[in-house]
């Protein structure tokens, strides 16, 4: 199961990772090997085996519905690149 160059570019775009054109074939080879590994596992007969969603054999713990956090905006915003009026500022997003 080999990936096309276009698919590598699409995956990179979805992950917002910039890749150089000359590296595409290298990534193609690496990613294709991962898919080959998955294909190998797919070939195993898993009839009668329940799918797992998590490697730990445990269930989710729940917490009571209580407000336990206090406002730490000052501290969080101290490490933000830009803030104003309590808001985090980001480059303009237009829908």
């Amino acid at each position, binding site marked *: 199961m080999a990936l096309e160059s276009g698919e590598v570019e699409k995956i990179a775009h979805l992950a917002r990772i910039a890749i150089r054109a000359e590296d595409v074939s290298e990534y193609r080879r690496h990613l294709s090997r991962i898919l080959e590994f998955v294909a190998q596992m797919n070939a195993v007969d898993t009839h009668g085996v329940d799918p797992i969603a*998590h490697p730990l054999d445990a269930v*989710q713990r729940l917490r009571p519905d209580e407000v336990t956090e206090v406002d730490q905006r000052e501290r969080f915003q101290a490490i933000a690149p830009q803030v104003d009026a*309590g808001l985090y500022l980001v480059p303009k997003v237009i829908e």
Partner: protein
Amino acid sequence: MSDWEVVIGLEIHAQLATRSKIFSGASTAYGAAPNTQACAVDLGLPGVLPVLNAEAVRMAVKFGLAVEAQIAPRSVFARKNYFYPDLPKGYQISQYELPVVAHGHLNIDLEDGGTKRVGITRAHLEEDAGKSLHEDYHGMTGIDLNRAGVPLLEIVSEPDLRSAREAVAYAKKIHALVRYLEICDGNMQEGSFRCDVNVSLRPRGASGYGTRTETKNLNSFRFLERAVLYEVERQREVLESGGRVVQETRLYDSARNETRSMRGKEEAHDYRYFPDPDLLPLEIDAGFVESVRATLPELPDAKRLRFEDQYGLSPYDASVLTATRELADYYEAAAAACGGEGKLAANWVMGELAGALNKAGLDITASPVSAERLAGLLRRIADGTISGKIAKQVFEAMWEGGEEADRVIEARGLRQITDTAAIETIIDRVLADNPTQLEQYRAGKDKLFGFFVGQVMKACQGKANPAQVNELLKRKLAG
């Protein structure tokens, strides 16, 4: 013009009324200063771990039971990956393959008086995103993450709806239900209840579905209805001019009453869901489900049928009075306190009271006239102390002055005149004062009866018992 069938499915996001967020202990209170309720978990800072809120799970199960759905004994949280600045982690924690609630249904009332069963495919738990503020902040976008991590229940219907009206009826029914269940405040202005609508057309009689569009973030029932109507017309025009509907996400612009394509976002709709390794599977045992079932209130449909039965109300009256739990509670308190005069109480709650509340822009819970006070007035109508007409005056005084009915009646001397002799005296005077009309009436002009009633009521300031006036007047006029 071809005959098209409209196919509609709804995705409703109901914000669950928990105190804290779905995966963190930050407050969910609305209206706080920006980012004062966004903690390290909500911000997706490195090293944090989400821990699921038990109350959000309980509320989801409560909803599932109310729509007779299956509660998954085991459900899984998944990451839905996309990039947007108000989504700090780069993924939303949601549920994908194994939602907590599946295969439910809800009956809606149709205009022809029938009902329709609408399938509920699933309802799953997820976290809300933050808010982007596009006003100008030095040419940048402002991000408020107070809403990030607020628990949502996304309720997905089957494509069972066939018109804008059915879509609205379904949305309103879900809205009433989540409020009855006290799992969502239903405040649409604040975004606590929002709808996405999927619309497609197909030739009537076809079994497959046409290509659909999804219109997002409709925060009022009117916008939902308009967006569907607009989208149906738009798709019809595309199809009838030989074009093809493009599967896409659209936004409804209420100022222009149109839907617009959100171009460029389509490619990003490759969400690459996978189970969230930070969260273990959620297990819900039968004991927990039964403990939630025990807390279910009487649901709107059951209450409506009981109102018809117990108070002798018409289906229409019963459905109006059970529209919200608060209104139904008010009505029942009033009906009980006035000695079971169910129909009289219904008329007053839906008539004078609803009118006054509407005019003042008040909710039933803020009514200046309590259910007990209203019942005090209804008792005086029922026992003949005052007429229905005088009662309206008394009600006005109670609304303005906050006094009990009996005090208003006594203070203003509004007690109904039921003394036959007293009424007869007034009638005699009216007849003596209007000899011409009396002559005409006796010559066969029956219509004048109303005139005499009016004169008598005027002479006694509306206080005479109307039934007695009619009877005595008839006798006197006969001569």
